[in-house]
């Protein structure tokens, strides 16, 4: 596992470029982004930011305008999870970086979620 992931093909390829010793490769995004088949004249980072902002507004509206209870809580959790995933995927470059980094993040996230659920289930106060 480690062998493959820790020497990414992209790295090896960029290192092979002549005359650039230790060249790591700069895969910065283009000025345009394709969303659902349409081209937008903004870099992907900006598009993601707009989505994040919209989701935040949606979330606050949901919390303030809709009476709490029923589906709102899972919905808000889902939105916040989606926002976190967007940041991790695009801003922290998990979309192009080693899979090992994703594992490094996911293992503790799953573990602490289970631990927190355990603490929620057991009774407290004594």
């Amino acid at each position, binding site marked *: 596992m480690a062998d493959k992931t820790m020497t990414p093909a992209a790295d090896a390829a960029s290192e092979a470029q002549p005359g650039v010793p230790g060249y790591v490769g700069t895969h910065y995004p283009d000025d345009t982004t394709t969303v659902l088949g349409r081209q937008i004249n903004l870099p992907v*980072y900006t598009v993601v930011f707009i989505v994040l902002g919209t989701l*935040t507004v949606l979330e606050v509206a949901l919390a303030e305008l809709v009476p709490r209870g029923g589906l709102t809580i899972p919905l*808000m959790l889902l939105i916040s999870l989606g926002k976190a995933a967007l940041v991790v995927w695009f801003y922290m470059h998990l979309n192009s970086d080693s899979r090992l980094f994703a594992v490094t993040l996911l293992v503790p996230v799953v573990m602490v979620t289970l631990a927190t659920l355990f603490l929620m289930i057991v009774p407290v106060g004594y």
Partner: protein
Amino acid sequence: MSEMSLQQTPAAPVRRDAHGDTHGSHSQRVQNLKFATWLYLASEVVIFSVLIATYVVFRLHNPEVMELFHEKMNEWPGIWLVSLNTFILLASSWAMVMGLRQIQRNNPQGLMRWIGLTALMGTVFVVFQYVEYTEMAHKGITLYYDAASGIFKDFGMRFYAPTAFHGAHVIVGVLWALYVVNNARKGRYSSQNYIGVEVFGLYWHFVDVVWIVLFTLIYLI
């Protein structure tokens, strides 16, 4: 057979140390640093989870306190200030990646402008959090156990511990951003070498992600 081949084996066989020089080629150093940063963030996930869990467990067992808390949050500035703050932190993350993009295009000036903006927005976040805490304290929500606070007497500590721990991370992040700007000013980054910016970016975005989760869990739910 073995004795003969023994003498003829070259002293330096094909197998060699992966990091031929001091501490490896640049690309290996980059991979090492990124991996180490991710491992560090993994441990941060766990420590934040302990503080968040104390809140979540309290939230689950004391819905009436939360009702009251949400009512308090509806008073000005309340939830609006926090929402604005959330937006500022999201924007600072965006500024961070835009800065990274500039240095990937070999434009240190752009990097300094964007990261400077990140630091500025981080500072604003901390200042607004201070304002928010002051408001909270006036409403009787204190870090220490305060029997005089009525229903909020054991709520404050569960509220402040995770948010203040996050705030401390933002402060560290602002200082780190200024350090990155200073490095950029001295010309230490280029399109060939921007790992210092990238590692800071990972940290900053992680702080942002933690806030995304905290904001929903504490203020909205």
